[in-house]
């Protein structure tokens, strides 16, 4: 079941762009971060943890890493720190991150 966004889309006019999330088309407002675009799109999880728990972007300021998402094939991108681009391919990450506190493989 799709969960409606927990946010109201602003009444301001804005240019839109197209991206995909797990292959599904998503319309996003140009200039938004990936995390904002996903929160505007649906109220559903944007990531599953190693234990399968659903998460969405949390702090919106680069601190919590709950917004991790695969962007154009690169895993573990902080969605709140990356701007959307037309044609961007997003995938939800499921399970362990393979990302440690220090160095990160990608």
């Amino acid at each position: 079941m799709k969960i409606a966004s927990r946010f109201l889309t602003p009444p301001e006019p804005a240019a839109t762009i197209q991206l995909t999330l797990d292959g599904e088309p998503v319309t996003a407002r140009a200039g938004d971060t990936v995390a904002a675009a996903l929160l505007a799109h649906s109220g559903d999880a944007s990531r599953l943890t190693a234990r399968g728990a659903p998460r969405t972007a949390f702090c919106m300021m680069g601190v919590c890493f709950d917004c991790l998402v695969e962007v154009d094939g690169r895993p573990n991108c902080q969605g709140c720190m990356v701007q959307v681009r037309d044609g961007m391919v997003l995938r939800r990450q499921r399970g362990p991150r393979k990302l440690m506190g220090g160095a990160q493989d990608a």
Partner: protein
Amino acid sequence: MHELDLIIIGAGPAGMTAAATAAKHGARVLLLDEQRRSGGQIYRDVGETDSARPYLGKDYAAGRALVAALNAPGIDIEVDATVWRVDAGPRVIWSRGGKSHVTRARHVLLASGAQERPTPFPGWTLPGVMPAGAAQILMKTSGLLPRDAVLAGSGPLIYLIAAQMIDAGARPRALVETQSPRMLLRAARHLPRALLATPTLLKGLGLIAKIRAAGITRHIGATGFSAEKTENGDILFSFTAKGHRHQIATPLLLTHQGVVPSTHISRAAGVAHEWNEAQQAFQAKTDPWGRTDVHGIHVAGDGAGIGGADAAKAAGRLAALDILHRLGRLTEDARNQTAAADRAAHRRAMAIRPFLDAAYAPLPEILAPEGDTIVCRCEEITAADIHASLKEGAKGPRQVKTATRAGMGPCQGRMCDLTVRGILANCGATPATPRARSPIKPVKLGELAALTSHKETSP
């Protein structure tokens, strides 16, 4: 030979005023921020949003002047620039787009500001639960408005956000406030001093009046937060107030228990820190000029203790004046004379803190949760796991970390350090400042390898 006089990390009120002050006196400044625009948390994207979002208010719009003042000779700005290492020397390493840069200057000012205090309670990791300031960031940077949200917790920021939501036509469904009449009574003894900051007090009362006038339900003295998911994906929020258990279903539960200094960068740089009991947080230890015990490194703004934007602006200027003096650009007398007004402004801004800290102190159960409540969001470690490690002999934050993996995920403890400390303190320990290590943000291995092979760059 240093081309640069000063590297400032963080383009919030503290970093912005420091940059403008230093450049005005001829210093060459590099201002780095990991966000895509200058402004810091209070003024996120203020340079962009012109008048499209008037509901954010006058205090927000006032940030535009600070951002505009950065457009001055002597100031270079790099945004999207995440600093992941600061060394004595001083030397700063920052990353953008998968590439790291090493920059040196004679002085470094850390102005990395604050983050919201993590608020662990059962269900706080569910989609639909978010810090109130994070929702406010979405309002500032995207114009997204919280839908039928409940604001829960305490602190001046929660009133501001409620008022902004009302003005934006996105009324919160309810305010569930954790401060009790008794806490307010205890805080009242700080009121005489807070009168020095009367305009701030009046602003706060104005916000509360607006929330009242809008007829929004307020619960006071709430405890026992818990959140569950409903069938349609909403959050079922439960709490206790006035001896009764209450439940509210909402798409969005916005929590807040104040903000705490962002200290990973100063801790990793080897700067001494201290525990602020009134604010329940670690902060960088500085003298009145923002000097630390590490040569060449100053700290200004919320990173040295929460004071709010006005205090941060004054502290940024004070640090810049001291650095100018050390650069030989201001005599000691000139520094002291120019600083007098900023010192007074800082004192005025700080005068209200003891009252706010006491009135809106975080709940003990949020500081030291129990049972199945997740403490470390990254590694999904619960309070019970932390307690078990203590029973097995862990004595300090490092041993808890090794035993449980709490703090070993990508956020590097930003979401759990304080909670681990709270649990340790609750169990009778006097925990030391947790360690932070560079890189303080995840850096790709390839990026690290490229760094060792390439020469230092000046942007």
